[in-house]
């Protein structure tokens, strides 16, 4: 049940894994994007802080009353009020000082800045005023340092290099009495870098301000390790022309944590859900399986042959339906069983009677078979006899005709002789006829004798000789040598290959007859060109208890039709050449009966003849 529930959860687990993976990927991308956006927001914040400061600085400097305040204290209230409203208020750590053209401080806001010594700026302010003696658009703003030393905002507050200052000229463009000399002084805004950065940091959130470059100068550089952050650098041009470069870092751990936390929550949630689902599945499975267990027990009982109806209370519709079906099935089984028993009895009775009939039929068939075998034997014998009769009939007929002719001629010559009218020419005719008739007799009687001998050989038992153990290869070589008288008329090469020491327990006479027949057939039917060199190859190999023997020649070979009919009795292509058509039939009988093997004829690779014999190493025993 737990396994089922667990298996049921596999798709959910796979889906959850895929979901977590995809979400993780998306969250990382999203987190990196968020980090960039966060950094961009910080960059924009810093830029806007400086932009607003620069803009306010320019606006204040453009105010005529501020410009006048560098010339007359009558404008002090105006100027300081404007400085307070536009620059000082809402900004921490910032002050503004108005210098007159003689580089003396005229006004300051907050007023305590008047207590400071600004002589350190003298050279820079003097140079700045020289460069900006005439009004320019946009109003120039320069960053001035207390000296040329590198700034470091990370040092303790209040340190001497803890301030930076921006300067812009003060002009009175509409003065009618001195249009060529409108410069009244300069406005210096002093920014406490620590306060400025701290003020910016309030709005940074988790991001870190790493460095600020203004006008190509480092005005802030954090000592924080860059490797701990995803860093982003934003470079923009302030509205007043100064270029600002802000390096912002978003802690890597925050980028990762943001993802990890979400994934952790998600995994926790998924695990909780899956666990709950698992328990729920187990509970549901348990509840669902209860009726099936009941059904299982019921089916087990049924399988043991207890077909009694179940009246158990099963929950759920489907199992109840199943139970009803099982009950119906058991009812049906009981009915069917009864019906089956009845049918079995009927069928048994029927089978018994059928069996009796079959036994009778079998007996009849056996008798019929014997009859048929006998008929077939007789038919074969008849056929054989017809063949033998046919074959022998011709020489006998010719012999009889020759004898009759000779007898008639003899009677005729005797009559002439008796009448003493015998002439030399009559005698010579008689001699000629007698000579011819006797020649015919001799030939046809020899032919008949040959046929008879052959018929005798068809009976294998009579022609295969005794059984003994012999070396196959040596024996085959002897067979080939014994045919030397027939083979010497052809240019033939014999190749006999096989294990020299292979000894077989068989009938050497059968082997001699088979291979002599093959060789003589090759000479008679295959080797038709006298001038050509021929090859006869015999090879054998042992495969377990079976001997594979192959006979091939490179003669003219045989047609497919010949191959099909080759082993049938009296089939010959050389009837006119005195062939009986029994040679290969005898071979077939010897291989299959005497040697207990098989023979197959085929085309050789070079379209010669090929015979493949498979015979047992030990020939079967035969009754004499």
């Amino acid at each position, binding site marked *: 049940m737990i396994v089922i529930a667990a298996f049921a959860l596999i798709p959910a687990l796979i889906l959850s894994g895929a979901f977590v993976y995809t979400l993780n990927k998306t969250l990382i991308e999203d987190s990196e994007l968020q980090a960039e956006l966060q950094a961009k927001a910080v960059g924009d914040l810093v830029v806007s802080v400086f932009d607003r400061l620069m803009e306010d600085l320019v606006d204040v400097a453009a105010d005529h009353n501020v410009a006048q305040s560098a010339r*007359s204290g009558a404008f002090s209230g105006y100027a300081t009020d404007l400085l307070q409203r536009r620059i000082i208020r809402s900004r921490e750590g910032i002050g503004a000082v108005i210098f007159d053209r003689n580089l003396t*401080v005229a006004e300051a806001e907050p*007023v*305590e800045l*008047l207590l400071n010594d600004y002589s350190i700026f003298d050279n820079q302010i003097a140079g700045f005023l020289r460069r900006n003696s005439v009004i320019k658009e946009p109003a120039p703003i320069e960053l001035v340092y207390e000296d040329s030393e590198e700034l470091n905002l990370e040092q303790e507050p209040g340190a001497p290099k803890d301030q930076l200052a921006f300067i812009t000229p003060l002009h009175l463009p509409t003065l009618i009495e001195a249009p060529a000399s409108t410069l009244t002084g300069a406005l210096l805004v002093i920014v406490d870098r620590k306060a400025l950065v701290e003020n910016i940091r309030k709005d940074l959130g988790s991001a870190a301000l790493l460095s600020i470059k203004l006008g190509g100068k480092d005005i802030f550089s954090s000592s924080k390790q860059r490797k701990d952050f995803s860093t982003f650098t934003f470079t923009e041009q302030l509205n007043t022309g100064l270029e600002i470069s802000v390096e912002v870092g978003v802690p890597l751990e925050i980028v990762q944590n943001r993802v990890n936390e979400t994934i952790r929550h998600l995994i926790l949630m998924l695990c909780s859900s899956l666990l709950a689902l698992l328990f729920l599945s187990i509970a549901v499975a348990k509840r669902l399986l209860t009726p099936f267990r009941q059904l299982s027990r019921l089916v087990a009982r049924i399988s043991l042959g207890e077909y009694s109806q179940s009246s158990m209370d099963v929950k759920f519709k489907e199992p109840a339906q199943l139970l009803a079906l099982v009950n119906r099935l058991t009812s049906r089984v009981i009915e069917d069983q009864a019906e089956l028993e009845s049918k079995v009895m009927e069928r048994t009775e029927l089978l018994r009677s059928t069996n009796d009939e079959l036994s009778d039929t079998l007996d009849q068939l056996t008798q019929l078979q014997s009859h048929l075998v006998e008929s077939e034997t007789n038919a074969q014998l008849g056929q054989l006899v017809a063949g033998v009769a046919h074959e022998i009939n011709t020489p006998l007929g010719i012999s009889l005709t020759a004898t009759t002719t000779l007898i008639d001629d003899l009677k005729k010559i005797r009559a002439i002789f008796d009448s003493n009218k015998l002439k030399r020419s009559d005698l010579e005719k008689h001699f000629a006829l007698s000579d011819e008739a006797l020649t015919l007799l001799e030939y046809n009687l020899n032919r008949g004798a040959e046929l008879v001998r052959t018929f005798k050989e068809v009976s294998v038992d009579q022609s295969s000789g005794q059984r003994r153990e012999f070396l196959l290869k040596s024996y085959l070589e002897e067979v080939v040598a014994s045919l030397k008288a027939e083979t010497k008329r052809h240019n033939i090469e014999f190749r006999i290959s096989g294990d020299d020491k292979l000894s077989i327990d068989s009938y050497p006479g059968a082997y001699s007859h088979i291979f002599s027949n093959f060789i003589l057939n090759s000479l008679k039917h295959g080797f038709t060109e006298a001038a050509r060199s021929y090859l006869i190859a015999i090879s054998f190999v042992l495969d377990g208890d079976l001997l594979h023997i192959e006979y091939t020649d490179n003669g003219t070979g045989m047609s497919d039709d010949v191959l099909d009919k080759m082993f049938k009795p009296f089939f010959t292509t050389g009837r006119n050449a005195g062939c009986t058509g029994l040679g290969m039939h005898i071979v077939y009988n010897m291989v299959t009966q005497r040697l207990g093997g098989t023979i197959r004829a085929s085309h050789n690779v070079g379209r010669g003849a090929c015979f493949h014999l498979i015979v047992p190493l030990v020939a079967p025993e035969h009754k004499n």
Partner: protein
Amino acid sequence: MKFNQFLCALSCLLLFITAAKAATLELWFEKYEAKPVFDDLAIKFQQETGINLKSQHMPTGDLKAAIIQGVSEDKGPDIVFAPSDFIGNHALLKLSEVDQVELTKGIKPEAMASVTEKGSVYGVPLLFGNHLLLYYNKRFVESPATTWQELLSQRKDIEGKGTNLISWKPMEMYWLIPFLTAFDGRPVDGDKVTLNTPEFKKGLAFYREQVDAGLINMRCSYECVYDHFLQGQYAYTINGDWAYRAMKASLGDDFGVAVLPSVEGRDMTPMTSSIALMFPGNSLGGEANKQINMFVQFMLRPENLIHLHEMSGMMPSQSETYDELEQKYSADPNMQAFFQQMKHTIPMPPTPQMSAAWIGMAKGVSVYMRKKASLDDSGKLMQVHAERELARQLRAE
């Protein structure tokens, strides 16, 4: 022939423009109390002379800067009615010298002194005094304090009545002067600025002690010394003579005036000056000379000076009218205190030094009162910046 005709037409046009311009005089003034007077007198002046008087009030702190700016852009007024210490900036203001004797005839010598710098007269005083007085509300004060110690001793009693002891404008330098003079401090001495003197610093230290003692709210503005006093939020206030009439009218029988109390046996001596007609942008030497002369003479008429006096409370600068009014108020204890205080004032010199001193003082007092600098540093600071301002003024000349 055609060129002559063109010149003729151009001359006519210029004459017309000049006439049109001359037919209107623009007057900027600082004393808000004078507004209804100028509104009334403008009608009267127009009826008599056909000259329109366009008057514009400006707050004290803005007026001088506005005039300098206006003059620099040729948009300044023809006439300014302002404290005579403006003359200290006569170079920037381009004030016309008043060399017509008939315009200053009969004016009190002290008033004339307030508009004379290095022998040159730069204005026509209409009102004289402009000094600080100790006003009190009789509802809270039965007998005004004559010494600062006495004043402080009344604090508990007065605060027990649900009000505060005293108000003044702590960051206004004009109000600081009596505290300085009580210790013999003087902002200027001839052509020298004398802010970083022991006397001056002593007075300044005393001044801050009062603030530290919680006697005065540092954020007090003119509302404290006028509106809040009239509302009964303060038993005493130190304010100028220009508020006399309005406060008297508001408080009625509760209105009381006293001489500023002495400090450690020394008088608190306020400054005195005049409120004068001045002519920025050298307007008196310009095309409106005649109209300006007519207006000055119109304003110097006794009835018009009395009108100004009645509206503000400040005394006219003309000797004859002044004497008549002094006689008239001989039975008025408040006005007696008024005149008594007048006798215990120091004239405010209309010099660049004084103007520069005001600038330096404002800076030094600010840092000192806000405890951003020590007394010595504050003294140095105000001296340095006053001298720098003076140098700028002198360069402007």
